[in-house]
């Protein structure tokens, strides 16, 4: 090899690198595979439990507070939280499903697999899934904001600040999410060009 490497030498260096001799027995693989499935089930259950708790938490206020406007606000907050958790869970499930359906991974060329992954992430940040999530999350704070303006009470300032902050956060989320979606779309376009490029 003297002082220089040809591209064949580089391949040789790569292929002859030290190996850690990683091995997994079939029993070990079966156990880990079952463990992975139960981890996913547990995580999904935890996600559902958190979502359920949030919905219940806000729903309780629907029955506690005397004011009808506030009741509606809490109901919409509960609905928004539930919808957000549902979408997060759906996104996670789709992601895991792609990994678990390993059989399909062998039938799918890498570019299609990668494209599907990017497409899933892009859709989380734009389109109907994003806008419906935003609207559902904004409804509750909007009602509280409107109430704070329309019905001056002792705690008006607090309601105003909290609901306005939530609305501002949601507004700020719009350009951030759309920018992220554009980034994913740019990567998808690159992949399309590679797939449909010169034959």
């Amino acid at each position, binding site marked *: 090899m003297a*002082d220089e490497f040809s591209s064949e030498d580089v391949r040789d260096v790569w292929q002859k690198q030290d190996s850690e001799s990683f091995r*997994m027995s079939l029993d070990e*693989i079966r156990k880990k*595979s079952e463990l992975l499935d139960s981890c996913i089930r547990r995580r999904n259950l935890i996600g559902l439990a958190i979502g359920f708790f949030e919905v219940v938490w806000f729903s309780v206020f629907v029955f506690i507070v005397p004011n009808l406007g506030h009741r509606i606000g809490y109901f919409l907050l509960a609905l928004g939280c539930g919808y957000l958790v549902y979408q997060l869970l759906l996104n996670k499930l789709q992601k895991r499903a792609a*990994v678990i359906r390993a059989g399909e991974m*062998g039938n799918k060329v*890498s570019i299609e*697999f990668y494209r599907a992954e990017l497409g899933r*992430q892009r859709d989380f940040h734009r389109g109907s899934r994003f806008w419906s999530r935003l609207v559902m999350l904004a409804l509750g704070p909007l009602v509280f904001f409107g109430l704070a303006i329309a019905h001056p009470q002792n705690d008006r300032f607090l309601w105003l600040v909290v609901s306005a902050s939530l609305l501002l956060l949601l507004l700020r989320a719009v350009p951030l999410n759309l920018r992220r979606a554009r980034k994913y779309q740019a990567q998808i376009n690159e992949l399309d060009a590679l797939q449909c490029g*010169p034959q």
Partner: protein
Amino acid sequence: MAVITSNKDGLYQETAHTYGAALERLAHAYERDQDIRRDLLQDIHIALWRSFDGFDGRCSLRTWVYRVPHNVATSHVIRQYRTNSRSFVGLEELENMLDNREARPTSDRYEALGQIQALIERLKPLDRQVMLSYLEGMDAASIGEISGISPGNVATKIHRIKSFLVRHFHEGGRHGR
């Protein structure tokens, strides 16, 4: 069912025996951290074992065996990308970056290996896959079959890889004289 299971087990064992070292190299190229790499390698082996339920011989075993690990590793890279905000570059950008930097002389295999790994780690998933497949000794047709990139684009990428590998290490060697 027993036949299917034993076939699945048999395919996995054959794969682990034949491609075990290549899978390790693949994991090495996708993850530098030793502990995380071990997890990734485990995920790859589990995914491969599970994947043989769906192996119907429509493509060669070799193609299948390289597709599954690359897809698992790509998922891993995307996850890392989201959590670390690491930015990857394409082969073209990498070439330009190397052009603007003086090649470090090396005639040492270990150092060369370190440099190859450092280069691979910066690449976007598909370019990384092409580079790795090339280093594993595959031809353009096999790389196209595994990755789904059109033959013309694979050829262009291989040409680029060859040229910058030669330039990077060749020039490095000259400096080292």
